[in-house]
């Protein structure tokens, strides 16, 4: 029986997530034994023709060309898995969605007329059907392995959608919010990193995007009670997953309060 064919594609992103695949090191050999890496520019120049069984997509859609390309990638694969905050939420580059992209182009490029960019940086799922979204900035290589193995074995991946707090408590971390009043996005952020930041006594930055039932309004209210200004709250919610709905809605609401009340 022929091995399933794996393709990896990149959109607007930093490459960090697809490098997680190479980062698997030891496990990579095992992966290479069960799939055929058919199209992965970071790993090999050899490209096998479509169709593919599983395709990993990193990065967000930011240009009309991206938009056409993702449609084609979807057509060429059975399973499409998006990986990372860019592909699943628009990434850090989605911060531009709150500004005029032409202003940036004029400011940054000597010849802005050559730039054909969309107004917004958006997740892959805005354009095509996605079979599984793997969160994180960057993704966890262990979760990537789990998703790949699960798809190959035909089972549901063990990727929890609950909060980072579960990982914190499982690990036995003291809570940074309760024990020293450090703002932490963990309660509204999806697990997956192994509570990395709280394990080093820092608050969570929300790299894995909103958890399954993120109550950002309550947490933001608590941040305010802890002494954070609305500006600080907006900034904390506008990180790698700024455009994810639960974070976006609350940051917009808080920003509106700044506009009404004057910058605080």
């Amino acid at each position: 029986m022929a091995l399933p064919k794996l393709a990896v594609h990149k959109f607007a992103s930093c490459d960090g997530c697809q490098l997680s695949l190479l980062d698997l090191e030891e496990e990579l050999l095992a992966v290479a034994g069960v799939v055929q890496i058919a199209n992965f520019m970071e790993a090999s120049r050899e490209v096998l023709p479509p169709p593919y069984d599983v395709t990993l997509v990193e990065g967000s859609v930011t240009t009309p060309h991206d938009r056409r390309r993702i449609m084609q990638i979807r057509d060429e694969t059975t399973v499409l898995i998006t990986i990372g905050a860019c592909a699943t939420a628009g990434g850090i580059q989605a911060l531009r969605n709150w500004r005029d992209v032409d202003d940036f182009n004029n400011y940054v490029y000597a010849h802005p007329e050559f730039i054909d960019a969309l107004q917004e940086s958006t997740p892959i799922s805005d354009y095509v059907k996605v079979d599984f979204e793997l969160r994180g900035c960057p993704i966890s290589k262990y979760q990537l392995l789990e998703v790949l193995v699960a798809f190959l074995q035909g089972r549901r991946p063990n990727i929890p959608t609950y909060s980072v707090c579960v990982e914190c408590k499982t690990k036995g971390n003291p809570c940074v919010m309760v024990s020293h009043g450090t703002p932490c996005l963990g309660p509204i952020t999806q697990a997956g990193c192994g509570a990395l930041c709280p394990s080093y006594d820092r608050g969570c930055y929300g790299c894995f995007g909103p958890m399954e039932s993120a109550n950002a309004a309550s947490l933001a209210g608590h941040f305010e009670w802890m002494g954070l200004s609305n500006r600080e709250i907006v900034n904390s919610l506008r990180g790698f997953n700024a455009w994810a709905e639960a974070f976006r809605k609350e940051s917009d609401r808080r920003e509106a309060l700044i506009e009404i009340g004057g910058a605080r």
Partner: protein
Amino acid sequence: MRETLVIDQEGVDALIHTLTDRGYEVVGPTVRGQTILYDTITSTDDLPVGITDRQEAGTYRLETRDDGALFGYVVGPQSFRRYLTPPGNVFWKGVLTDDGFETVELPEPPRLAFFGARPCEVAAMQVQDEVYSAVGDPVYLGRRGRSFTVAVNCSEPAPTCFCDSLGTGPGVSNGYDIAMTEVVDGESHYFIAEAGTDEGSEVLALLPSRDPLDEELVHARRMVVRAAERMGRHLDTDGLKEVLYGNIENPYWDEIAKRCLSCTNCTLVCPTCFCSTVEDHLSLDGSEAERARPWDSCFTLDFSYVNGGPVRPSPGPRYRQWLTHKLASWQDQFGSIGCVGCGRCITWCPVGIDITKEAAAIRERDVRRVVVGASSAKEGTE
């Protein structure tokens, strides 16, 4: 009556060493970061000596105290549940063979000595004994059956404590091998130690000790009585089960849901919570498999997932499930309230949601009463 003796700090050290020598892994309170957690301890140097904790809903701070007390703090975010049903515990392992599979023998569980267990903590283990005995759980029972408990009575409850409302503290009445009361009184610093089991007596007899003076016993007892009078919080358990069962549809649950983050912290710090899920791990080539038991919580969506979706998709019913299970349906299920009044869920809720306040709020807004009284009916439906 078993013997009651007086030991000093040297005696406490001897106790830790004796237990270690007898093959126990002694697990007790120790400072980690800015919190008191449980970890393996080898002497009183590992204890949070001269440290106290200041607790309130959603906040916890460590402070120093100048009396050199060994147990001058109450409970931290962890409980011994962490050792009895370790999160992610692998309870079955197997390898593929030519004609099927073979079960791999798992290592023996450690012999644990729970050191410095507060009365509420001892009570919590007794509550969990009921839960796990009912299903004959080998992981819990295997560890619990081999364990040793050194309890410490409370003289300074935290503002979040309410064991007195549930009869689980501040003094321990049973479920220990050795129970101690620490007395720091001016220059004198001693521990009244009492055995609760034969093994406890045996261990106690090995420690340097003396007989207590009558006034020492009276003093120690009075400290615990006074602690009961200084409880930070209170839970009215009178008819609570009926109140909660009668308020499943109370709109106030959705008020709590506006604040609740569904973050699971309350359930994961609770020493009586027992929910777990089961995960299978399979190696890439399918030759090795293991079955593990990560902690779960009624606040996650997967927890109530049945064919097609979660039974409790919105956070109001999830909070209601937690509180109603702890305080009401637990009684029907296991014959006692599922809460021991340790206050952990109050302190470690990031937004400070307080089980005692919310239970009182539901009682105040009792829909059964509101329906009868016309004037308050409006308030109830707002």
